[in-house]
């Protein structure tokens, strides 16, 4: 690799700066930041993919904890929804890890790429939808007391919302867990649409709750990466520091943005991830 013509200090500072941006975006959209960190480190800085993925797992946990610290306090995260759905994501992650190597990754990339592309289109169609509108009744959500409310800083009022299609959400979270266990990507990119489209949570609550959840999914696999030696101090260190700072700053911004702009930003990122997955699947790597 030719790009490694830097001093260690320059490399650490560049990685740190990229990670601040990744943390900021991740905190706003409920993603782990891997979609920025991995290509930036490998294509941009010429780092071995193995260390980039190790650093991206750290980045997911850093985004999650950095952003959720604020979102939980501000009541933006729906704790009950998050913890309930973690049941499915953790089982999914274990299934995914078990299936890894037993199924052809190529077709999975195509299938999930299409799934994300479809979610992006659906979310774009719903970009004007009101937060907290009427939803079909759901006995499971009633029983688990999943409904909630948050204060919207843009609308200057408390938004009460009701949760619906809990079982469908749980099923989609299982799939999301499988995908992150299998492919190591897309942990937040599938969680947010599942909560937004199926369970009808307001978009800000969906991204904040996704942020809360992705740390647990990533922590489950982080042990493996650590034991394998994929986590390199001089790479993952600046990534962790940058993402933590970026995510904390991003968490201050979410409340001030309109739901519509967050939806549109999410759609753009989702299309990008979906394109990346389809490309990988078609190329057959």
């Amino acid at each position, binding site marked *: *690799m030719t790009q*490694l*013509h*830097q*001093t*260690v*200090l320059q*490399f*650490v500072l560049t990685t740190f700066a990229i990670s601040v941006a990744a943390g900021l975006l991740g905190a706003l959209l409920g993603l782990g930041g891997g979609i920025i960190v991995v290509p930036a480190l490998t294509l941009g800085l010429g*780092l*071995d993919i*193995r260390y980039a993925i190790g650093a991206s797992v*750290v980045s997911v*946990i*850093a985004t999650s*904890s950095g952003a*959720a*610290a*604020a979102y*939980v*306090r501000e*009541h933006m995260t729906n*704790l009950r929804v998050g*913890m*309930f759905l*973690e*049941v499915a994501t*953790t*089982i999914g*992650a*274990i299934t995914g*890890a*078990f299936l890894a190597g037993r199924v052809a990754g190529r077709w999975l990339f195509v299938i999930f790429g299409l799934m994300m592309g479809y979610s992006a289109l659906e979310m774009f169609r719903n970009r004007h939808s009101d937060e907290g509108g009427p939803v079909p009744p759901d006995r499971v959500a009633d029983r*688990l007391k999943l409904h909630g409310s948050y204060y919207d800083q843009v609308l200057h009022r408390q938004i009460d919302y009701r949760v619906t299609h809990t079982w469908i959400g749980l099923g989609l979270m299982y799939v999301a867990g499988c995908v992150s266990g299998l492919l190591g990507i897309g942990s937040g990119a599938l969680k947010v649409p599942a909560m937004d489209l199926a369970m009808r949570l307001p978009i800000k609550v969906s991204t904040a709750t996704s942020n809360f959840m992705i*740390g*647990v999914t*990533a*922590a*489950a*696999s*982080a*042990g*493996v*990466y*650590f*034991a*394998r*030696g994929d*986590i*390199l*101090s*001089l*790479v*993952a*260190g*600046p990534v*962790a*520091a940058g993402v*933590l*700072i970026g995510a904390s700053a991003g968490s201050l911004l979410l409340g001030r943005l309109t739901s519509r702009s967050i939806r549109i930003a999410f759609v753009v990122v989702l299309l990008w991830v979906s394109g990346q997955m389809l490309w990988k699947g078609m190329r057959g790597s």
Partner: protein
Amino acid sequence: MNDTDRTRKVEILISMILRIGVLTSLAVVMAGLVISFIHHPDYLRSRQDLPQVTAPGRTSPHDLHDVVEGIRQGRGEAVTMLGLLLLIATPVVRVAVSIFAFVYERDPLFVVITTFVLAMLVVSFFLGSVEG
């Protein structure tokens, strides 16, 4: 005390755990990086070091014993790794504490749900250590 107060207290507790995890790991990671640069002044000038420290096959301390040993010797790389491990542990601690939080909220169903999630995390750690 009514239910809303209890729920609010739980939220503040969980937020506090995350914040403590974030600030501690950030401080330890930064300290480790600074120590690395103090011990290796050529990291600031030489362009020869980077390909070496990021060469495929190179590893930072990657079991707990090596991390502890490295910290005893005052190695920055080991200190940074300790910070990263604290960061990785934060969501796990959050789940564990939530179990008690739901006991406090008198919500047996969520005590079961959260205990299950913690059990799954433990299972995945073991599966991981077998594989890794």
